């Protein structure tokens, strides 16, 4: 950029289900390419060192830390970000339940949590509480204490199985 010697890389990928081409400085991480070159700022960062899970996206259905993956490595891959989670105007069940339970407080870590949870539910449609804890143990949240997140994931999984499930009253009002 400074003296015209930098060459931009140019790749094509499937982004949130749509074909996409993007040019960027070749040293950039997928996180930077998504945010800076594709304008998809829904993917957040908390450390840019692979420590917090905040930048989690799905690549070919698997959750990865986009701060640790080069943008170049996304060539010909299917990348899914928070922006692609809803089906048009219809929110993904995880987005609904994160909103309903208050699992998104400041909301900064929420995209990463929702994508990691999506991978889990696709693998394990009826995850136990321990499975959820294990699957989300690489994502840090400082607001919620994780509890509303577990509940949101359980509710969404039930929804996706076509089951009716409601939060117990004590989750929303405390124990009587």
């Amino acid at each position, binding site marked *: *950029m400074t003296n015209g010697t930098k060459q931009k890389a140019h790749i094509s990928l499937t982004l949130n289900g749509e074909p996409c081409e993007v040019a960027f400085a070749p040293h950039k991480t997928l996180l930077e390419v998504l*945010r800076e070159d594709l304008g998809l700022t829904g993917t957040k960062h908390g450390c840019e060192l692979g420590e917090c899970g905040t930048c989690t996206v799905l690549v070919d259905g698997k959750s990865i830390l986009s701060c640790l993956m080069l943008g170049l490595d996304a060539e010909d891959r299917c990348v899914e970000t928070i922006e692609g989670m809803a089906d048009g105007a219809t929110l993904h069940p995880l987005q609904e339940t994160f909103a309903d339970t208050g699992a*998104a*407080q400041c909301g900064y870590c929420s995209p990463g949590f929702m994508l990691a949870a999506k991978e889990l539910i696709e693998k394990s449609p009826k995850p136990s509480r321990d499975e959820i804890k294990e699957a989300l143990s690489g994502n840090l949240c*400082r607001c919620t*204490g994780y509890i509303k997140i577990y509940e949101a994931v359980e509710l969404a999984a039930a929804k996706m199985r076509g089951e009716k499930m409601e939060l117990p009253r004590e989750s929303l009002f405390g124990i009587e």
Partner: protein
Amino acid sequence: MSNGKPLNVVGKPFRKVDARAKCTGQTKFADDIFLPRMLACKILRSHEPHARIKNIDLSKALALPGVFAIVTGKDFPIPYGILPVSQDEHALCIDKVRFVGDPVAAVAAIDEDVAFDAMNLIEVEYERLQTITSIEEGLFVEEPRIHEYGDGGNVHKKVSLEFGDVDEGFAEADLVREDTFFYEGNTHLPMEQHAAVAHFDADQKLTLWSSTQTPHYVHRALVKVLEIPASHIRVIATPNGGGFGGKSDPFNHEVVVSKLAMMTGRPVKCTLTREEVFYCHRGRHPVLMHVKTGVKKDGAITAMHFKSFLDGGAYGSYGVASTFYTGALQTVTYDVPRYKFEGARVFTNKPPCGPKRGHGTPQPRYALEVHLDKIAEQLHLDPAAMRRQHLVPPNTVTANYLRIGSMGLGECIDKVVEGSDWRSKFAWSESVPGAIATGSPSPRRTDPVATAPGTDLIRRLPYGRGIGIACSSYICGAGLPIYWNNMPQSGVQLRLDRQGGVCVMCGSTDIGQGSDSILAYIVAEVLGIDPFDIRVVTADTDLTPVDLGSYSSRVTLMTGNAAIQAAERARELLTLAVAEKLGVPIENISFAERRAFDVENPEVGVSFAEAVVLAESKFGTIGTVGSYSPPRSPGKYKGAGVGPSPAYSYSAAVAEVDVDPSTGIVTVERIWIAHDIGKSINPALVMGQVEGSVYMGLGEILMEEMSYRANRNVVHKFPSLLEYKSPTTLEMCDVKTYLIEDPDPNGPFGAKEVGQGPLLPVMPAVANAVYNAVGVRIDEVPITPEKVLKALREKERGRDPRFGPTSIPDVDWPEPLRVLTPAEGGDGREMPRVAVHS
């Protein structure tokens, strides 16, 4: 407020108004702002902990293509700081650096890569100075001084207050106990790194977007430092990706990007790295504490003397307030008839400490609650029953002139005691097995803790498993603003349009706690509409009336009251117009379900939008305002400004833990917590705050600490999310929450705070449970496996089974400022010093 009518919005677990945006990635945090032609800013920070700046050579950096501007301390001659008494920061250091991470120069360049490269080309010549690294050194090493102000040497602030004669109180006591504690510092660790974007636009006005909890104070700091009129500066607080107090100071990067935008004529963004966030800090002060309490046989406190020593780090920040807070709220939980507080804050060459969730009170709360546990054991009392019996009475004034209103702690204790099955689990098993029965005071009949039948007082938990209790209280908003003025602390403006649209404008800042939603819920309740009908505009100094910011748990109470006032004024106008139209008396008009109607004939009415049309036709454009000022505090003595609040929230927690005696590892299985919320505006959000508080408390008690290399370089050991240990899903415990609703007359719909209070009892409850599990006292936070093992080893050797500080520095305290307590007929003013000595 609700006119006795049923509540349709308040008390219901609605979604937050911004929930959909947050769950779809559409919320724009500060670093999500990208403006055309925007430059990137990086700040060069000192790698020296304490040094004079001899020379800064910018020539190589300036020559780098893509560099647009570089600023140094010379560009920022005017100091600033959050407190008027501590204007000790410069956006970039002028003549010396005071900690590793202190900002020295800042670059604006075409992109972040170039800015980094340029930073590496800046040559700074330092002359090292002796470092001040500890509380002891801060107290006793007078030279070199880190700052040229304060209470002498490297002491920033010394305070000494005495309410009633504590010696008299100690003389009346059956037992006087003294304990020493240390609470290590820790940091907020918001997931969002601080970021700021400045734009000096075509009409020569500055706009700053920043992840700040206090846009109003940032606005004031920019006016001062940049020397441009307030009306030419607009500060917009973007939604905070977590704050916890860490984004409450005006920060150097906010000032720097503003200046660079003015110099370059282009937008400039600075996003801190995670490492830099550790250097911004303003987190929990490390505090060494000594507490001496006199009690009667039944645990009634006769007097308390509390001393605290705060390691403030390199700048003032909120530190003077923090110092007072380590001594202010001891009196609002239990009845303390005579009270003395001495506190000292020192400067050291570390990142500056400031306000973290609970501001200055988690440390003394931990000390006090563990201390009370030891007292209960010595008196052979059940620690839950002892606390329950000596609560501060509601609607009273404490010895240090804090006015208590509603007080739901008794019920909180009952809930966690019952829920945790305390009575069948707890006993002083090791030292005084079964002693609880013999030593118990005659309980009040209403006290379910002590009178419960079936208490056999035999410990049922095996060695290694333990249970502990602690209580706490917290302010619902600081009674006084940070700078002296007579204006409201919170303002709300409401605009109603003829289509039925309602816009709420308020300077408050949503840091994830849901303050935007609270405004919508409250206005919707008063006007009988749906909260999602409302447009909420907040935290923009150009568009919204001032609210002082998201700190001191003030937002729900203060903006809530301001919102009620604004909405009631609007409803009054609508009522007049609708009553006239319907031909019914005004007292018959009610608002609900988006309608205004005759309560005696509910089908007779108009839609809310029609009501606005009628009112607009009658009165013109409908806009109303509301504001809130806290009641005046009865305390008039110097120092009475810290502690007063319109209301106090209360919490009680029981922790059940497993301690592995072979590794020292503490696993918290479950915490039962009850919080006196007054009234939940939205119980789901209250639950989230309680659970989040338990989580953060768990991190503080078990693992989180700001630690520095053990040499004179004072380098932070691990400024990263990996090495600074915080609880993941795998460490988080199970939480059982009880919400106690004891409405406070000063709260909106009776509501009190919840963002900070429930954190406070967690640390001491866990510490007390560890003792109950393995019989060792860890009088130093965090309780790491190493400390547990060391204490267990002491126990095995027959020595004092504890880990923690054994002494406090011998300090020359100033002559205390003496105040007669309300019980002694005091008027809230200090006694003339001559009278004391006569």
